C-alpha cells in the first residue's frame, strides 16, 4: 500500500474559462491510465473532474474573477488510488471566494446532493432546469469514492477514486 510520501504528484493550472476544461480531461485521462483504472472508471473520473471545473468557472464568473483567478488541479497518484485536489489561485481577499461558496452557492452539501440524485425529484420536478443545475455535485457523489467540499481554505474540493 502506497502512502502519500511515495505518491507522485502532478499539477495542472488552467484559466477559469470553459474552453480549457477539455484539457483538464485529457490530463486526467493520462493520469488515471497510468495508475491502471479501466476505461469506464476513467470516464467517471473525467466527468467528476469536469463537474468541479464547471462549478468553479461558474462561481468565478459570478464573482467576476475570470481574468485573475486560475484553477490549479493537483493529481496525487498512489498505487491504489487517485486523489484530485482543486485550488483557486488569484482570488485571495475576494469576499465570497472561499471554497464552499465558489463551488456550491447557498451551501448545498455533498450529502444533500447525493440524496437529491437518488430520489426521483429530478424527474418529478416542475423546474427541471433548476434541478439540472444540481446534477453536477450529484454526479460527483455517485461516481467518486470520496468527495469533500472544503468549508474554508484554498483547497476547494478534494475527491478520490480507488482502484
Amino acid at each position, binding site marked *: 500500500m502506497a502512502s502519500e510520501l511515495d505518491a507522485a504528484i502532478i499539477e495542472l493550472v488552467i484559466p477559469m474559462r470553459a474552453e480549457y476544461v477539455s484539457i483538464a480531461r485529457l490530463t486526467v485521462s493520462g493520469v488515471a491510465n497510468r495508475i491502471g483504472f479501466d476505461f469506464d472508471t476513467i470516464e467517471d473520473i473525467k466527468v467528476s473532474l469536469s463537474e468541479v471545473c464547471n462549478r468553479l468557472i461558474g462561481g468565478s464568473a459570478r464573482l467576476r474573477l475570470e481574468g485573475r483567478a486560475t484553477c490549479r488541479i493537483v493529481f496525487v497518484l498512489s498505487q491504489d488510488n487517485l486523489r484530485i485536489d482543486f485550488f483557486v489561485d488569484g482570488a485571495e481577499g475576494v469576499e465570497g471566494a472561499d471554497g464552499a461558496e465558489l463551488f456550491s452557492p447557498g451551501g448545498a452539501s455533498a450529502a444533500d446532493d447525493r440524496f437529491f440524485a437518488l430520489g426521483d425529484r429530478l424527474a418529478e420536478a416542475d423546474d427541471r432546469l433548476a434541478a439540472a443545475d444540481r446534477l453536477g455535485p450529484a454526479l460527483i457523489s455517485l*461516481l467518486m469514492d470520496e468527495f469533500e467540499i472544503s468549508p474554508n481554505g484554498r483547497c476547494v474540493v478534494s475527491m478520490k477514486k480507488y482502484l
Partner: protein
Amino acid sequence: MLSSGLTIKEQERESSVLIEIGGEVDIFTCQELKDTLYQLVERHGKDLILDCTTLNYIDSTGLGVFVAVLKKVRQIDRQITIENLKESILKLFLITNLDSLFNIRPGDGCGGDNAQ
C-alpha cells in the same frame, strides 16, 4: 480560438428529424448544442431522434441541454428519442433517473419502432 470538439448533423425525415451528435458536449459546447436543437424544433416542429453513436463525452451541462430541449418539444406534443449511447454515457442517464424522461433505445440501424 480553440476548436469546440462538437459536431452536429441533421437529416429531416417524414415525421422526425435525425440529429447526429458527435464529439464532446461540455460547458464550452453545450450552448451551441442548445441553440442548434432549439432552432431545429422551431423550424421543423417534429420529433427529434438524437443519434449519439459518435458522442464521446457529456456531463451535467449537456444533460441540462437535453432536459431543456425536452421541455421545448413537449410544448408542441413531440418527443425525443436518444439512440446509440455509449455505456459510460448511458450510465449517467440511469444514475440520475433521466432515463425516465427520454425514450432511450440502443438503436439497430433500422430507424424503426423496436424500443428496448
